[in-house]
């Protein structure tokens, strides 16, 4: 237990401000030399975001992710946005296990023909209002897979898409920015 506690204390809080775009690669992550600006300290940003969330949805934002046929590259970066550096949950945005709990559907992949029905059903199971974000080049337009006998191409060929986030895979910063933009545009 002592080892665990000392590790926590030595590591400190690493979360970076959410306004930081494409944060410069930094090596000294666990060391003292690094200046960290925990997200929670950036009060204005978080306040503004929370207000928009409340205005739009009346609560925190819940995301349901569906892989509609991706190569699993985008999934790696979606997982990264919950690591201590990006700490998406610190903004009141969290991933949920059921579409019935979700406000936003985050979809990766080209839509494979074999996932088409499951994707539609997931979307139908979500309560209103609902947002759809298409993630990655494949989600945006089908990417390298395009349309073929087994792929329907981009997410918009199956669902109404509110926001696309390009990249192969998009960086964690790009994903977070895209999610925030989706919320902002819904609020207007």
């Amino acid at each position, binding site marked *: 237990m002592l080892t665990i506690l000392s590790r926590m204390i030595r590591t400190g809080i690493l979360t970076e401000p959410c306004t930081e775009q494409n944060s410069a690669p930094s090596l000294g992550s666990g060391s003292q030399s690094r200046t960290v600006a925990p997200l929670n300290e950036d009060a204005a940003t978080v306040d503004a975001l929370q207000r928009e969330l409340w205005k739009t949805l009346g609560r925190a934002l819940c995301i349901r992710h569906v892989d509609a046929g991706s190569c699993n590259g985008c*999934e790696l970066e979606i997982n990264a946005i919950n690591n201590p550096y990006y700490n998406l949950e610190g903004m009141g945005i969290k991933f949920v296990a059921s579409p019935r709990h979700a406000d936003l559907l985050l979809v990766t992949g080209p839509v494979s023909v074999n996932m088409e029905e499951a994707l539609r059903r997931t979307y139908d199971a979500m309560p209103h209002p609902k947002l759809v974000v298409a993630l990655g080049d494949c989600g945006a337009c089908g990417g390298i897979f395009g349309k073929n006998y087994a792929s329907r191409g981009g997410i918009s060929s199956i669902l109404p898409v509110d926001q696309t986030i390009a990249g192969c895979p998009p960086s964690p910063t790009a994903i977070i920015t895209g999610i925030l933009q989706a919320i902002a545009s819904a609020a207007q």
Partner: protein
Amino acid sequence: MNFESLNSAKLASSGKTLPSNIAAAHAILTRAEWQRAIGDLRAIDAVFLSLWGADDCDRDGSFSIYATFLLAEGALVLQHKITDVIAPSYPSLARAFPAAARMERAVYDLLGIASATVGHESDQRGWLRHAGWPEGLYPLRRSFDGAQQYLVQSEPYEFVQVEGNGVHEIAVGPVHAGTIEPGHFRFSVVGEKVLRLEERLGYTHKGTAKLFESLTQTEAHRLAARLSGDSAVAFSWAYCAALEAITATAVPLRASSLRALALEHERIANHLGDLGALGNDAGFALGLTHFSRLKEDLLRVNAEAFGARYLLDYVVPGGVAVDLSKSAHHLLEEQYRKLAHEVAGLRAIYDDHGGLQDRFREAGRLTPELAQDLGAMGLIARASGVAHDLRVDHPWTPYDGLATQLVTQSGGDVAARVQVRFDDLFESLRLCQTLLDTLADGPIQTELADADSDQLGIGLGIAVIEGWRGPVMIALECGAHGSIRRCHAHDPSWQNWPLLEYAILGNIVPDFPLINKSFNLSYSGQDG
């Protein structure tokens, strides 16, 4: 080359050398020879790697079925030409090599070539074809238009029913609760205990094999990198190595070493992710926090040293895309030192944590006997005492100069798979340091030997690369003028998915996420 351990004298003598990154032979067999060879190969404990087919009706009025095996001497590719094009079939491998069963179903879905079994019925259910294209149409046939779209006509899929007092089913997926790929799991349980698990995969089938045929030889490495994004370096290297073998292109030494560095970085990043997720699935969130922090550090170093967090387009035909600067050397060395130190500390925490070890030990046991019999691959095999690693058994350049240490465990449970990941990671760090220390000067790319001027760039070649999950294979057949006639990609998840069905038996349903994560198999890599 000479495959002396094979009884079949004809096979050994008729085998021709095949372009590859390791020693490889290719033999064309009659139906009877094919059947005999399968038995012989089982008898000498050959490792079954992959099965695929091709439509050559346009060329010589036949279909072909191919199987690759790994032997002590190298890789052996068997080919059987099927001249009955009305009802094409070949003798099934599944009795001798159970891992072939799903591959045979996939070959049928894509090519309409059936496996013929004796004495028992083969599984007629579609594997990659759910209902997305009409029955009786086969995407990999030359006559099939790959761009055509079809309406989905829902079809029933019959899972094996378990009957008895108190038995009920739990259906999970294809959409799962977390951020993972889609697949369907059908559990038959009594109370919490799992009596049977049946997987249904194929949901992410994107028609990649057909797509390869529409790409040129010098652009298809980008598709190879996207067969399974977490194994991008392994697959793109395998593709490029196959192409380079066929075109007799010698890659500069510096490029080979940089490829190996990228491959080991991919291995380390995936192991860091898995070790964190395994802690988390056993209720130890601190593990996830710290390992995901270390993984992020490594990805940022990748971005600085190689130009991208994930190295999807790093390996290119003839070499690598970005050179490593002198300043990046220090960056990498510091990263390796820091990782070694931090991971050792976290390992001590994992090893000493009673609650964590209680969940890890005895969970999801795959016995060494079963792993051997069913043909387990890579990391999963090595956690069950099956000692195969291409970097050790058939080291290709630059691994031939690295003396990779084989990492194994015999426990076969989640704890063993955790230990293999830790040991693998430390061995990878050692390899990375050695690669840096011995990095040759020189160019990072060379021109491909002209692939379309004469016969040089035409024909079949294979390459196998030990990715972080295990051996990945690309079998490439080049056509004229820089075209691709056929490209078959194989992910070790094909062999390991069926083993998960065994590992879960007798465990409780709530342990499935942990056991599944300890396998961490690719859906996209298997679905194609």
